[in-house]
């Protein structure tokens, strides 16, 4: 059974790590979580990023956050990637599979997955 005592053990283990991490993250993954995003499937997309970042050991450099509606509801689920010194990348009509690919190729590999961006969606 999970207990609060177990949580206390996690706390002891994490204490030093969290302090070290403050101010070191530089990539932000922002997932739209308004009614339009949620209805289009943003919840599993968000979870895929949260779990993927943790699994790949990227917690020190990448944060995953949520935002409201950014006004392009027809393209939801929408995910924006912010990296210092680079232009914002907007991915549209995201799925769990696409999130995994973005994490691997863009966040880890540094190469934008052009086919999922809003620019390609508008061309199609």
């Amino acid at each position, binding site marked *: *059974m*999970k207990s*609060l005592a*177990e*949580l*206390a053990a*996690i*706390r002891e283990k*994490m*204490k030093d790590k*969290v*302090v070290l991490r403050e101010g070191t993250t530089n990539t932000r993954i922002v997932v739209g*979580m*308004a*009614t*339009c995003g*949620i*209805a289009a499937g943003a*919840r*599993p997309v*968000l*979870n895929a990023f*949260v*779990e993927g*970042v*943790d699994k790949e050991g990227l*917690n020190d450099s990448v944060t*995953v*956050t*949520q935002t*409201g*509606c*950014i*006004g392009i*509801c027809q393209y939801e689920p929408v995910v924006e990637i912010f990296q210092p010194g680079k232009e914002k990348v907007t991915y549209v009509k995201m799925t769990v599979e696409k999130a995994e690919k973005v994490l691997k190729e863009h966040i880890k590999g540094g190469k934008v997955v052009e086919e999922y961006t809003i620019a390609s969606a508008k061309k199609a």
Partner: protein
Amino acid sequence: MKELSLNVLDIAQNSVKAEADLIRICIEETEESLTFSITDNGYGMTPEVLARVETPFYTTRTTRKVGLGIPLLKLAAEQTGGDVTITSRHRDAFPDSHGTKVVARFYKTHIDFTPLGDIVSTLTTLIQGSPSIDFEFSHVTPDTEVRLDTRELRQVLGEEIPLNEAEIIRWIADYLKEQYENKKI
């Protein structure tokens, strides 16, 4: 919405936007019905706003002209023979007791009833997005009883570990899932 837990997530996001610091989500099920309530201590709505929230053409946002959260919830409830009740006290009129309560009732035996779905994901999503807000969750059915109070977790974790650390989110998900597996006798 494909599952009711997505409506819960969507409605609770309104409480987040209303600057609540405590959001209570209670789900009660009988054999025939499912009722959920979301209660917050956010800034609340004036009677004028409250009168308009059920119409799709009311929204507080500036990025688009329609707000569909409450109308979608009403549709989901009413198509099963259920209903939605919203009460609210705005902070201007009720400086010490403001907040909003949304109650939605569904009839499970109706063919148009949408299942609750992945409520654990809804909770971890809310906590991940708003780690400084407290959430009190309870889900009582004829054979299970599941509870979570982030204030208890915060007491154990102290100030330095935020609730949205991946390891904590995972613990919360497992903690809830275990309770769902543990049936009442």
